[in-house]
């Protein structure tokens, strides 16, 4: 990086425009996915719960593009209907941990002293557990269900945001403009609302968007183990676990929800990478 000559203004503009185009493109794609999942009931060609015992385990055909499962339910409809559970729970989870974690982080940085120590040691406790292990146990104790799975993952994921928000806020506090605002008579609320939040939201947003894919996979993982959405509710992870016996004979039934997860995660990851590059002036 250090040996390459500084890019010219023209080159910088070209890069910025390409990035902007990429951002709009992936943003639109992600939005499309969310909107489609919102209207998933209207998009399903069949009722995802409707069983047709005369047509169980059918191969893909013109009527049933992805075939049917062992209850004769149309797989395409179930995959489409599953997007609602998978995508909405993920977005709910990520917005919750982002807001909650950042709030804790700002409080820590602002209050300092004991509040800071206690809350940070608490977050250390949660960070001491490896990945899904703690979430597994929380979901197990709470007893499954989408809401409990969301809660379990939220319990292990908020500390990351708290640490990020804390360090960002601490760095800001020393900035001259903050001192100036303070001297001009801004109160705590105004300082946080007008100066801290707008300045720390960039890095937090990037982390949040990049987290959507991971959280979607972890939520699906919990459902796969029977600790998230329960059948017959269509959810991608639980659908795969539900139909895994069909893998040797009807692989498309088992793999279709997997591909749905794969493409959704990919879209959100691409969006996350682009948002990161767009907000990082060094990469332009």
């Amino acid at each position, binding site marked *: 990086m250090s040996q390459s000559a500084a890019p010219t203004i023209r080159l910088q503009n070209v890069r910025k425009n390409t990035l902007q185009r990429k951002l709009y493109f992936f943003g639109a794609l992600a939005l499309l996915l969310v909107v489609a999942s919102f209207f998933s009931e209207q998009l399903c060609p069949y009722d995802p719960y409707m069983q047709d015992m005369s047509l169980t385990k059918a191969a893909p055909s013109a009527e049933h593009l992805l075939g049917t499962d062992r209850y004769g339910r149309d797989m395409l409809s179930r995959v489409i209907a599953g997007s609602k559970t998978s995508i909405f729970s993920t977005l709910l989870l990520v917005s919750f941990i982002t807001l909650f974690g950042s709030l804790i982080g700002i409080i820590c940085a602002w209050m300092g002293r004991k509040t800071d120590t206690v809350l940070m*040691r608490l977050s250390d406790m949660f960070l*001491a557990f490896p990945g899904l292990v703690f979430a597994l146990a929380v979901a197990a104790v709470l007893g499954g269900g989408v809401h409990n799975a969301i809660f379990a993952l939220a319990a292990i994921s908020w500390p990351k945001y708290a640490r990020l928000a804390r360090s960002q806020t601490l760095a800001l506090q020393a900035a001259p403009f903050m001192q100036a605002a303070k001297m001009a008579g801004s109160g705590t609320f105004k300082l946080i609302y007008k100066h801290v939040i707008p300045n720390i939201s960039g890095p937090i947003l990037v982390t949040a968007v990049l987290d959507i894919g991971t959280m979607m996979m972890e939520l699906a993982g919990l459902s796969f183990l*029977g600790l998230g959405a329960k059948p017959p509710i269509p959810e991608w992870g639980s659908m795969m676990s539900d139909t895994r016996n069909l893998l040797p004979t009807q692989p498309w039934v088992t793999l279709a929800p997997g591909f749905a997860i794969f493409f959704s995660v990919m879209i959100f990851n691409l969006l996350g990478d682009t948002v990161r590059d767009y907000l990082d002036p060094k990469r332009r």
Partner: protein
Amino acid sequence: MGAITSMNYAFKRLIQLIPILFGITFLSFLLMYMAGSDAVTEMYSNRGVEVAQEIIDERKAALGLNLSFGEQYINWLWAMLHGDMGVSFVTGENVLKAFLRKLPATLMLTGLSIALTLLISLPCGILAAIRHDRGIDLILRFGSFMGNAMPNFFVAMLLMEFLGIQLGLLPVISSGTDFESALLPTLTLAIAMSAKYMRQVRSAVLEELGKDYVLGAKARGISDSVILWKNVMKAAMLTIMTLLALSIGSLLGGTAIVESIFMWDGVGKLAVDAINMRDYPMIQAYVMWMAIIYVLVNLVADLLYHELDPRIRLGVNGK
């Protein structure tokens, strides 16, 4: 002098570990406590008998479940320090013994996955870094991108379908904990881990390659391979090893899903089975020991990092 400071550092880190270990035991206990009052009812229903309320109350008193939260925690902690984490609700076996019996299988799986991950991601990451922005780099980056978007159970299903069923190369369900049955679960874990790790190796090497001393060495006519292997890799290896230790956390979590898919008889499968049976003492033992293993791995990595980096070891400010 160097030895003393690193001893001091190790000691300091061990002291810092104490509150974290307390935190781990406390949270693990809290989990059990939340399930607590139900656990006794659950225990009897697991054994398939209907019992009167008095017997349940008596049983709770015998287990100390009628005491206050603090007393229960201290009792539990004391018993735990003596190696007694209770008995399984399902089998009646000592949970710690059951956990320790299954642990080697999981450690074997974890070890094999780490070895395979290194085997895949080190060469690929280095290659991608030295062929930065050329064809091979783009292909490898694309591969890692795809891998990052696949949950491990999906990778497991794909491998089962293509390697196990279509080609019939490998056994789909493990028949024990032998090497052949370990291949598919290892590959599943390694693919997911390599996808992340390759990127990290690439950026660590790339960052090192961009430093001024590399330019200086090039100007003095030192060959690229000497620079890469003798200088760049030596410096980048520290970051690479630390990142590896950090990714062990997600690997340990991932074993639960992969073990239960492939019927690999380790602690992950033990935990998933325990969850399905609502065998709370078992779940508790699993959560607590996995966290302790994770914390210890991180500690060792940190100490190694400290030991290997002369700038930190000798107290020279490198930053």
